[in-house]
């Protein structure tokens, strides 16, 4: 019997740590890994709510037609998008490294005002 709020708090903590990494890290690969961490945090709350709606169908708003298992399908789609994003993002990182010879985001500032 784990309260649903524990899962949501863990998810919020992981998401915040991901945002911290995104804001504070200077290495472009580590920034990218922080984004993956945020996606994982969201997946955790999807799965927790899927289980929750399965065991508490009475708490749904009346008239809501929810298949609880669709939370798992959404996690599947998030993972597919994350995989596609990782492939394209890492290709961009390789391309940036080839032209700028650096992985530090402070030195990739051509678009900066």
């Amino acid at each position, binding site marked *: 019997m784990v*309260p649903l709020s524990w899962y949501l708090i863990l998810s919020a903590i992981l998401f915040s740590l991901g945002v911290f990494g995104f804001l504070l890290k200077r290495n472009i690969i580590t920034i990218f890994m922080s984004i993956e961490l945020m996606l994982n945090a969201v*997946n955790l709350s999807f799965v927790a709510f899927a289980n929750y709606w399965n065991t508490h169908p009475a708490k749904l708003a009346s008239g809501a037609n929810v298949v609880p298992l669709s939370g798992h399908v959404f996690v599947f789609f998030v993972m597919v998008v994350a995989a596609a994003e990782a492939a394209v993002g890492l290709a961009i990182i390789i391309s940036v490294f080839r032209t700028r010879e650096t*992985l530090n985001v402070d030195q990739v500032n051509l678009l900066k005002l």
Partner: protein
Amino acid sequence: MIIHQILFIIFGIICVAGAVNLLVQRHPINSALSLVVVMASLALIYLLLGAEFVAAIQVIVYAGAIMVLFVFVIMLLNAGSEERTRGSHIAFFVGVPGVVVLAGTVAWLLIHSGGQLGSIKISASDFGNTQDIAHLLFRDFLLPFEITSVLILIAIMGAVVLGRKES
């Protein structure tokens, strides 16, 4: 069901410790390995939630495929330790307090009124097994599923085009 809570707390602590280690480490390869720890312990938390299929693809796709891609790129580019630079002032003075306030508010709300939400048992039924997800995925969500396969194809082509050496 005290064992359920103990397991959740153990894996949750491992998860948060891995995420903190990701931020603290200065070498990207150490960050990548601690992200693998986070993903593996998340897969175990998914198992506690009865999501067998999601736990399996978490290990195979995330901890397997995506992290191998990350480690491969880190080693390919011979990425060294992170340089200590000042970074963005806006991110530091606006972003960080903003996230602290937001996460604190969410956690406070959940702690104070989370009791109304109820709790989750280890489901004895076969909720979340692969067969049910396959029915859902290949019948109700068939069109989104096909669109994601096109998305993957486009991503592969984009990665090839971006990674190609210009002649």
